[in-house]
């Protein structure tokens, strides 16, 4: 049924439809409406789940690690500072191979205190062994949460579904909320490959010596490769039932493009408008949306970008002393290809600053009009201070 919901509610609806068994969260800022909706669903019985309110984000994930170890489908949501506090346990979740799904609403990190969109919080967790999927609208958020459970449970890895603060979390728009039976046909009950069982006592989390730790890490690496290989098959099934698919990356007008913009999150959506307008003016511009960031779809990215003359990556994030994080990954993906196009890195929209059609248009023109990148990272719209 088509409803008008916020991005936050699109997440909550998907969690309800996924028949999650346990939700644990810390409800204070920088939390979003996601867990507010879910606590309501638990209270009114529309979701038969246990809601565990805990004293911090660190505890929220710790509680879920225990829960998920017993073979229950589990969910949490956080943002910014809350994700940073979870950091240690993010490693724990993937190391324990628990397919927990988390909605991560991108919010800037303090200081200065800022609750607006910025991707540095989730990107700073790129090496924790979580699958990361970035979304551009409410429908994609709902669909991706459902796909995340299928994918995570298949390869035994946790999944972060990432969405922009405010531009997505607080924006109302039409979203098709599917029926429970339809979702059930896509997402069957969770069948854990291992779980704590009082009838078969065992211990988790003991000391692992050098003679096996490396193999355990390699196994996680293989699971990430499996996730990359399997995501399209999960999308095939999803498409059969829901008639929608997204792809690990989406290439729009890239085949004959001289310049390709690379985007994530809601900037993608606004860029579609800009690219359509530029195409109508005869500009040979393309757009590559990156949805799956971990595992990084390196071959797919390379095949989309390799024949362009210039690549312009828009990063709403920054790694101090290095540059925009997506730009770094794109450069790394291309570096072994002889004659690859130069990668222009643009920093825009940090801390919730608006990335309008004008900003995106300017990024295109600056890329077109310069022979080579002016700098490793070009900060858009900086004011004199």
């Amino acid at each position: 049924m088509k409803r008008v919901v916020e991005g936050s509610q699109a997440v909550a609806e998907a969690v309800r439809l996924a028949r999650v068994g346990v939700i644990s969260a810390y409800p204070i800022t920088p939390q979003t409406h996601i867990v507010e909706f879910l606590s309501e669903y638990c209270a009114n019985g529309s979701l038969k789940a246990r809601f565990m309110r805990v004293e911090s984000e660190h505890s929220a994930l710790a509680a879920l690690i225990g829960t998920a170890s017993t073979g229950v489908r589990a969910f949490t949501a956080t943002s910014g500072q809350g994700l940073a506090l979870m950091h240690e346990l993010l490693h724990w979740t993937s190391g324990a191979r628990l397919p927990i799904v988390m909605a991560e609403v991108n919010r800037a990190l303090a200081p200065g205190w800022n609750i607006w969109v910025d991707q540095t919080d989730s990107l700073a967790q790129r090496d924790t062994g979580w699958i990361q999927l970035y979304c551009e609208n409410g429908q994609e958020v709902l669909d991706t949460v459902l796909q995340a459970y299928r994918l995570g449970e298949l390869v035994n890895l946790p999944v972060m579904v990432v969405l922009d603060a405010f531009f997505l979390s607080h924006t109302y728009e039409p979203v098709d909320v599917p029926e429970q039976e339809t979702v059930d046909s896509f997402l069957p009950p969770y069948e854990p490959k291992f779980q704590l069982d009082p009838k078969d006592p065992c211990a988790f989390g003991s000391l692992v010596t050098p003679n096996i730790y490396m193999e355990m890490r390699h196994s996680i690496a293989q699971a990430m490769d499996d996730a990359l290989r399997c995501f399209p098959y999960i999308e095939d099934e999803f498409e059969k039932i829901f008639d929608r698919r997204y792809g690990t990356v989406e290439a729009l007008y890239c085949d004959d493009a001289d310049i390709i913009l690379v985007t994530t999150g809601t900037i993608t959506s606004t860029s579609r408008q800009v690219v359509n307008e530029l195409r109508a003016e005869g500009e040979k511009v393309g757009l590559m949306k990156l949805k799956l960031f971990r595992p990084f779809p390196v071959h797919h990215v390379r095949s989309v970008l390799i024949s362009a003359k210039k690549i312009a990556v828009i990063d709403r994030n920054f790694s101090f002393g290095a540059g925009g994080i997506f730009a770094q990954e794109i450069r790394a993906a291309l570096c072994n290809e002889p004659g690859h196009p130069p990668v222009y890195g643009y920093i825009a929209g940090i801390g919730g600053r608006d990335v309008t059609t004008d900003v995106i248009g300017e990024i295109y023109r600056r890329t077109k009009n310069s022979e080579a990148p002016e700098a490793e990272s070009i900060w858009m719209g900086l004011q004199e201070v």
Partner: protein
Amino acid sequence: MIEIRWHGRGGQGAVTSVEMLALAAIEEGKYAQGFPSFGPERRGAPVAAFNRVDDKQIKVRSGIYKPDVVVVLDPSLVALVNVTEGLKEGGTLIVNTVLSPEDVRERTKFKGTIATVDATHIAREELGVPITNTTMLGAVIKAVNPVKVESLNAPLKERFGRLAPRNMKALKRAHDELNLSTAA
């Protein structure tokens, strides 16, 4: 595409207005977006909320800086907030006030279409409270016609249940009692 900015105070339900309007638009097979001014909100403080309505899918996901329409839910805001900021020259300003459109033109110096209605009075009579978010939807429909009045039946029913008919009556009164002054 039509872009609308709503001015109200925290707690006056401007976000509910944008949600209702978006729902009504999709009832008609159109596309719509609604969002609040991003950031923390306090009860009673001036706030804004925004709508986009279009026949095509809406791709732009940034703020609205040059609205076609501005709606003011609280009469006191005209003196407090620059409500016409960015409003297109040929746009429409719709104010809940006892003043006439000419008086509002005098105060705001806005040259486009101005519409006024005493929505607080209507809301008090029909709903028993001075909350004008649903009442002012009627004014918006009369002035700029983004959706049909009937398309709000289902959204109001879903949100307000047994109070929906009273909200609809208030909405229709604002629609009928609107004073309109076209561009000067």
